[in-house]
């Protein structure tokens, strides 16, 4: 009998423990945070940040889900399809339409107070965070490019720092000298990845779509001139043959191996060059990105934070997104990596103007200055993948000499209009 009683006591205690655990779990709210390629490099920044938020919100736990950039969009889509989406999602403006059009993201009006939205650069909010007239994201950090220049190659070609081209117009002559005298290349433009040519027209200040955003209007002489400039650059052998089909990873490989004189990219690559090719790093000088003489514009890469429509605690998730993207926290992040905050006040901090005379310090100064003349390269909201493919295919044809730049621009505009009409 005593034995049976013992069993009953154990059963009752187990039940109590089970209910207590369930109760405890119910009090713990988990906010999942889906990010792109930040771990483990930035663990020291993010983990204390999450702790701070958790301390201010007892019972809340941040679950960090970091994924490599490769196939990031597909992984995210899979988690939405599995009906188990993360709460706060790191997206780029190029990915935003694909998810917003599927109604899986939460419009932020009413969830994030207006006064919070007003702290960010308004052009970044309008160009990078909206879809169909609604705000779907809070802008996070901004990245710009600088020109990293291998002075060894310049010296080998008999040139000095004075000869570093400031504009694309000056680039051609420098590229010719470098190639003739060193058999190396000055610059490696990307032609057929994510409609690079569209980006090239964009920074030239050429209007791509009409006011209704449903008609392509880029078949203008300036587009043909830009297209021709880059195609001639390729055809005249001033860039490697592989440039026509290469992806953005290739220029960094060539720069690190000392075969490329000028490398345009984010300043975070300086650290990579320093660790992988110390000799190249020691001979690298940093300059502002090249631009067009008649139109000084630079592209800005934006990272956003969005909230899943099925998020169980949207207010809390939005609060977390606002916390991560607030000026103070973005500024702290900028002190670790060469990026610029999307919060106006934080970007005006002396940290971005009073810099040390090192490649990283100068890069920070140049990028912060470029952001003021920056544009976010955007695609039409619908069928963007088809438009990108059409642009890349036509650029390839022009590069291979199958059609002329004039025909290329005309075909690209016609094809875009055909897709936009659907």
């Amino acid at each position: 009998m005593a034995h049976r009683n013992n069993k009953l006591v154990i059963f009752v205690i187990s039940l109590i423990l089970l209910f207590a655990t369930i109760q405890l779990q119910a009090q713990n709210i988990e906010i999942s945070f889906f990010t792109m390629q930040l771990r483990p490099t930035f663990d020291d920044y993010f983990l204390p940040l999450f702790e701070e938020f958790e301390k201010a919100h007892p019972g809340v736990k941040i679950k960090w889900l970091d994924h490599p950039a490769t196939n990031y969009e597909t992984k995210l889509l899979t988690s939405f399809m599995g009906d188990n989406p993360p709460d706060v999602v790191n997206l780029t403006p190029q990915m935003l339409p694909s998810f917003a059009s599927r109604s899986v993201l939460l419009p932020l009006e009413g969830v994030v107070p207006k006064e919070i939205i007003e702290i960010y650069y308004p052009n970044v909010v309008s160009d990078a965070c909206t879809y169909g007239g609604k705000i779907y994201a809070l802008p996070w950090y901004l990245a710009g490019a600088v020109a990293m220049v291998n002075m060894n190659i310049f010296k080998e070609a008999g040139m000095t720092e004075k000869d570093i081209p400031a504009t694309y117009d000056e680039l051609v002559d420098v590229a010719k000298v470098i190639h003739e005298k060193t058999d190396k290349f000055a610059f490696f433009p990307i032609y057929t990845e994510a409609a690079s040519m569209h980006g090239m027209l964009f920074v030239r200040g050429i209007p791509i779509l009409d006011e209704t955003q449903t008609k392509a209007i880029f078949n203008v002489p300036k587009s043909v001139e830009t297209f021709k400039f880059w195609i001639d650059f390729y055809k005249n052998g001033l860039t490697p043959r592989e440039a026509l089909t290469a992806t953005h990873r290739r220029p960094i490989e060539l720069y690190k191996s000392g075969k490329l004189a000028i490398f345009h990219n984010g300043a975070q690559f300086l650290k990579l060059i320093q660790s992988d090719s110390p000799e190249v790093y020691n001979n690298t000088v940093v300059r502002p990105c090249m631009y067009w003489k008649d139109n000084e514009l630079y592209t800005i890469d934006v990272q956003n934070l969005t909230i899943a429509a099925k998020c169980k605690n949207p207010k809390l998730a939005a609060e977390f997104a606002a916390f991560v993207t607030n000026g103070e926290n973005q500024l702290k992040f900028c002190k670790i990596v060469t990026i610029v905050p999307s919060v106006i006040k934080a970007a005006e901090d002396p940290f971005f103007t009073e810099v040390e005379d090192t490649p990283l310090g100068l890069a920070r100064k140049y990028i912060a200055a470029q952001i003021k003349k920056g544009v976010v390269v955007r695609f039409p909201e619908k069928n963007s993948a088809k438009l990108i493919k059409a642009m890349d295919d036509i650029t390839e044809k022009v590069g291979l000499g199958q059609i002329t730049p004039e025909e290329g621009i005309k075909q690209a505009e016609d094809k875009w209009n055909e897709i936009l009409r659907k």
Partner: protein
Amino acid sequence: MRFSGSRLRQIFLAYLFLLPTLIILSVFLFYPMLRAFLLSLWDYSPLSPDNKFVGLDNFIRLSKDADFWRSLGNSFLYLIVVPIIIILSLALALLVEPKIPFVNFFRAAYYMPVVTMMVVVALVWKMIFDTDHGILNSLLSRMSLISENVPWLTSPKLALFTVMTVTIWKGLGYYMVIFIAGLRSIPHELLEAAMIDGCKSRQTLLHVKIPMLWPSITLVAIISSISALQVFEEIYMMTQGRLGTSTLVFYIYDLGVRGEQEMGYACAMGVALFCIIFIFTFFNVRLMGKAHKI
């Protein structure tokens, strides 16, 4: 027909042993196949609010899709690798089949590419084939065999054939193992009889070994043809389908996974590819069987 109790138990046990495999196959193969077939009748994109049943529209669309036909053409062109793989892997098998010193080292060396990750293989071969900085062009140039760099991976005329060489290099070891097994199964008496009859090595190869290896050759032809028609990794890693190198599976991936994620249309192409491979393999088996009888 009546079964005794023990016979029934035996049958039940047999099915019980088959059950785990059946469940795994059903979940990971049969259901996805059925689902893909059903999706091919839909205008379907994941989570899209506009998904709708379109019947055979996707199949009509692909019949008019120039990119589909171009990609299918490239997939068939890729079949060039099949006879080359058969000849080279058979030659390798004949070289490493006899018991000679260090033969195991050579067998392992030839098999290494099979177990090497495609990412690594592609990176290395891209470095070799690079037009301006590649080892191959540099070597050919030093040997004065070329006057200007050959655009191995940057010319639409050459790119697909260059990628094929990687497929051949990577697959040789696998098919070599099949041929070694085939060579070992040839009865020793037959080879001895040929030797006694005064057959030279070439005659033994042509009149004894190859006829006896015909089932292995058929198997290699079928497996390598299916692999060639389904080629994806090499294209994805080396050319991203650019310069007219897109094959059908790459095009399916491009439409279904990347870009607009037009899964319904991509599934229709998947169904078409399944039918093509099925018909092709059927005729392949028939023709190889007939050739064997001749």
